[in-house]
C-alpha cells in the first residue's frame, strides 16, 4: 500500500496524459500511414506513404505552406526586433514605466478572435465605407486597397501586422525583464570607460541577453508556424477560399470543416508541420550553442 500511494497521486495525470497525449501521438502516426481510411466504415486499404504524397501535392497545402513560411519569415524577426526596441526604451525610462508596461501587455489577455474582428473592420473596404485605414492612406495621397478581400500582399500585410500586434506583449515582457536583470555595474563600468551607447548595446547588452533572445526566436518560430486563429479572425473560417490558409488551418480543414473527414491527410499534414518545426528548432539550438561558447 505504501508503495502504491505515490502512484495514486499521479494516477489522474497519467491517465489524462495517456489518453489525450501519448495514445494520440502513436495513433497519429498510424493514421498517417493508413491509405484510403474511411471514417464512416473505419476501414482502409493499405499502408504506406500515400497520404504524405497526397498532401504534398495538394495545391491548398502548398498555398498554406507558402503562407505560413512568409508569415514566419516576416513576423519572427520583426516582432523580436520591435520587441527589443520597445524593451530598451522601457528600460531607459523611470516615469510612467509601469503604465506603459501594463498597456503594452494588454493584447496578451485579449481574445484573438474578438480583437481580430476589430482589425478586420479597420482594414476592410465595403460598399459604404473605405474603412479607417484606407481613409488614412488616401489622406496621405495613396490609393486605398481592400486588405481583407483584396490582393494577396494586402491580406498578408494585415495578417503579419495583426500577428506582430498579438505576439509582441510576450516578447516585450520577456526582454524587459531580461534587460532589467543585467547587473547595473556593467553599464557603470562601460560609462566610465566612455563607451558610446551604440557600442554598449552591441557589445554588452545584446550578448548578455542573447540566451533570452534565442529563447524568443525559438518560441517565436514554433508559435508562428502554428498560426491559425489570427487568420480565422481576419478572414473567416473558409481560409482556403481567401487563399490565406495556414498549415494548422489545413490540418483542421482536413479533419473537419469544409470538405473534412480525412483524418489520414490531417495526420500527414500535422506530422509534416511537426518535422518542419523540429528541424528549425534544432537549427536554432545549434546556432545559439555556437554563439554562446
Amino acid at each position, binding site marked *: 500500500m505504501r508503495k502504491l500511494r505515490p502512484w495514486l497521486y499521479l494516477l489522474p495525470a497519467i491517465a489524462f496524459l495517456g489518453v489525450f497525449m501519448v495514445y494520440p501521438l502513436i495513433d497519429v502516426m498510424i493514421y498517417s500511414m493508413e491509405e484510403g481510411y474511411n471514417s464512416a466504415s473505419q476501414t482502409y486499404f493499405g499502408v504506406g506513404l500515400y497520404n504524405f504524397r497526397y498532401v504534398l501535392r495538394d495545391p491548398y497545402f502548398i498555398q498554406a505552406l507558402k503562407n505560413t513560411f512568409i508569415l514566419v519569415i516576416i513576423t519572427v524577426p520583426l516582432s523580436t526586433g520591435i520587441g527589443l526596441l520597445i524593451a530598451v526604451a522601457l528600460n531607459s525610462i523611470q516615469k510612467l514605466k509601469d503604465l506603459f508596461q501594463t498597456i503594452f501587455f494588454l493584447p496578451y489577455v485579449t481574445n484573438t478572435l474578438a480583437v481580430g474582428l476589430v482589425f478586420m473592420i479597420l482594414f476592410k473596404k465595403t460598399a459604404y465605407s473605405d474603412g479607417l485605414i484606407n481613409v488614412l492612406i488616401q489622406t496621405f495621397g495613396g490609393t486605398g486597397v481592400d486588405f481583407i478581400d483584396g490582393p494577396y500582399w494586402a491580406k498578408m500585410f494585415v495578417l503579419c501586422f495583426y500577428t506582430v500586434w498579438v505576439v509582441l506583449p510576450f516578447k516585450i515582457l520577456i526582454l524587459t525583464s531580461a534587460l532589467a536583470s543585467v*547587473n547595473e*555595474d556593467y553599464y*557603470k*563600468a562601460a*560609462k*566610465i570607460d566612455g563607451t*558610446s551607447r551604440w557600442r554598449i548595446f552591441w557589445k554588452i547588452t545584446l550578448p548578455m541577453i542573447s540566451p533570452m533572445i534565442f529563447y524568443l526566436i525559438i518560441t517565436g518560430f514554433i508559435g508562428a508556424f502554428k498560426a491559425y486563429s489570427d487568420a480565422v479572425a481576419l478572414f473567416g473560417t473558409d481560409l482556403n477560399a481567401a487563399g490565406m490558409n495556414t498549415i494548422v488551418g489545413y490540418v483542421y480543414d482536413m479533419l473537419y470543416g469544409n470538405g473534412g473527414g480525412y483524418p489520414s491527410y490531417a495526420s500527414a499534414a500535422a506530422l509534416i508541420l511537426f518535422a518542419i518545426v523540429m528541424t528549425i528548432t534544432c537549427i536554432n539550438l545549434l546556432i545559439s550553442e555556437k554563439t554562446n561558447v
Partner: protein
Amino acid sequence: MKVILEHLTKRYPSRDKNGKDVIAVNDFNFEIPDGKLIGLLGPSGCGKSTTLNLISGLESPTEGKIWFGEDDVTDLPPEHRGVGLVFQSYALYPHMTVRQNIMFPLQNLKGKDKLSKEAMNQKAEEAARLVQIERLMERKPREMSGGQQQRVAIARALVKMPRILLLDEPLSNLDARLRLQTREEIRRIQKNTGITTVFVTHDQEEAMSISDEIVVMESGILQQIGNPQHVYDEPVNLFVAKFLGTPAINVFEGEVKGGRLFIGGQDVLAVSGVEDQPVSVGIRPEGFILSEDGPFRTKLVQVEVMGRDTSVVSEHPDCVSGLIRSIISAENRVEAKDGNVAFELKPAKVHIFRKDSGVRIPYPEQERHV
C-alpha cells in the same frame, strides 16, 4: 592628481511623498593628496559608495564642487574625467576573454586618441603584467578564481592610465586568505603606478592596513580624516572610537567629578581639568593592566588563552557594550578574588566622551602617555 571635494552634498528625494529627502552625503570637505591611497571607511549605508560615485561622475552632486587638480569636474560626464573604477562584483564582461575585457576601454577612444590594434594589445599586456595575469589573457572570466578576476578588473581600470583609481569594496567577495593577499597586491600596484587611489570598504582592518589616510563616515557625515594610527589613537568621537579596532573598544557609563573619573562609583583615573559631568568612557582592550589592587574591579566571566595573548572577559553593570574584553600579555596569570578581577588603566587607551554629542574630551594625563 589631487582631488578636492568642496561642500559636496547629495540628496535623494524621499520614496514616499511627504517624507524627508535622504541625505546620502552631507557637506563634505576634504582634499585627497596626489599619489596617495585613501580608505573611505564606514558602516554600510553611510554614503561612502555615493561619494565614490560622485567622484567618478556616475552621479552628480546636489550641491558643492569636485576638483581634479585645477579642473572643476563637477558636471563633467564620467568618460571625460579619466577615472578607473573597480567594482565589488568586478563587472567583467562574461562573454569576453581577459584580453578583450582589458582592451575594451581602449577601443572606446575616438579621434586623435584612437590607438592601433598593436598599441592596444601592448597596453593591455602591460596592464596585465602589472597585476600578474599575463598568462591568463585568453581565458574567460568564469574560468578564473575570484582573486584572478579581481586582478583583471584592476587591469581593466588601469589600462587607460586613469588620473584617479576608484575601488568599491574590491575585496569583499574574496575569502579571508585571498583578501589578505590581494590587499597587499593593491598596495603594491598603487605604489608602483603612483595613481591617486580611493578605496571604499566597511572593514576597518582592511582600511587601516593599506591606506595612507582614512576617512571615517557615518550617515552621510564625515567624521574624521587622518593617518590610520592617529585616528585610532585620537578618535574625534565615540562613533569613530567604536568603529576602529578589534576587539572593539569597551564602553562604559561614567562620571567626572573633581578631576577624577568614576565608573560605577569606583575612582579609576585622574582626568585633571575636565569639568564635572556625566561621560561615556571608552577603554581599548589593550588599555587594561592586571593588578591585584587596581582601582577598577570587574566580575570575571572567563579567561581565553590565545597563545601570544590572553583575553580576559569580565562583566560590569555600567558597561554598555556587553562584556568587557581586555587583552593582556599571556605571561600574566589571571587570579580572581571572590570571582572578581581588578585592573589598572593606561590613560592613553582610555577616552572620555561628552554624554550629549559623543565628542571626545582630551585630558592632560592622556597626552603625556602617547
